[in-house]
């Protein structure tokens, strides 16, 4: 596969599935600079993975695998930036979309971020509607283990939502 072909595939995947990468970036990084850093790390890993993609799984599943593995390793690097860092000479890759964001969605991301790295992956896969079987394949653990983790995460999120005060309701 030539570099040009690889780049074309990357652009095609990015055009169709950038949303899933955005979700992972937002769930694993807090500061805007970190969003940028993690996003480019994921894109580079996805680019490297293209020749190994054998179409045994869907592109979405493949992208989740690569992106989640990258995000988990990225959190281990402890290279996160502080919000106060001077970024005058840095050209941002990601710019926040200027649309009103549902306050409850921001809260949900916040709660997902509070989970540990592994549970965060499980929560994302759960909310994205993956089956137990698909999750087990992505995570490399048994379906029963996935089930146990999901039950606990669901209970945890529901319990937290009881204390969430949305517009005082």
């Amino acid at each position, binding site marked *: 596969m030539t570099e040009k072909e690889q780049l074309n595939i990357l652009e095609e995947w*990015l055009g169709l599935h*950038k*949303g899933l990468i*955005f*979700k992972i*970036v*937002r769930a694993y990084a807090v500061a805007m600079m970190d*969003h940028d850093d993690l996003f*480019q*790390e994921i*894109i*580079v890993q996805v*680019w490297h993975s293209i020749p*190994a993609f054998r179409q045994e799984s869907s592109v979405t599943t493949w992208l989740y*695998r*690569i992106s*989640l*593995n990258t995000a*988990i*390793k990225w959190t*281990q690097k402890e290279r996160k930036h502080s919000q106060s860092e001077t970024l005058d000479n840095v*050209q*941002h*890759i*990601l*710019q*926040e*979309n200027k*649309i009103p*964001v*549902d306050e*409850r*969605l921001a809260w*949900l991301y916040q709660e997902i971020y509070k989970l*540990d*790295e*592994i*549970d965060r*992956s499980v929560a994302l896969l759960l*909310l994205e509607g993956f089956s137990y079987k698909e999750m087990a*394949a*992505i*995570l*490399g*653990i048994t379906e*029963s*283990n996935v089930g*146990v*983790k999901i039950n*606990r995460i*669901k209970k945890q*999120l*529901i319990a937290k*939502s*009881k204390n*969430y005060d949305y517009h005082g309701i």
Partner: protein
Amino acid sequence: MEFDELQQIWDSQNNQPLYVINEKALHNRIQSKMKQGLHITNISELLLIIIHLSAGSFILGVNLFNHRGKISLYVLAAWMFVTALYSLVSRIRRIKGTHRFDRSMHGDLNYALSVATYLVRLSQIMRWNILPVGVLTLLSLWEGGKSFWGAGFILVVFVFGFYVSRWEHNIYKGRKRELEVLQKKLETKG
């Protein structure tokens, strides 16, 4: 809220992307990242091989040109070549082992853990390798009738190297421990 409501909140973002990508900046950043392709493991291995090969060749060359070649220096050169060979064989075995892991999160963590274990072992071996190299160097100085102070200085350098390498070794050990914690979290039920 019930889980269905949480799901609805989550799905609400599907029609409105969270970010806009600056295509030009992304392209530039990817290009520069590609150039930084060499991983720390690769750099460590290549440095070990090059340094030991160069040092071994230099010692052997100097000793051969010297009319009164010293046995300790021949042994030291041979030791350097053996170390370079060991590093090369370890590197080949590591690269061959890359394909043993599946692409799941578990497989990826296992791979990262195997690389971390490899680095811990390599740094440990290289740390203890300072001892025979130090002894052989001191022996060659003694054979050449060098001054006590010169030998003392060399000894201090080797002791310093031995302690600094412990610091490097501990960094690898720390990274390995973090990965083990992650692996445990993934495997633990509940």
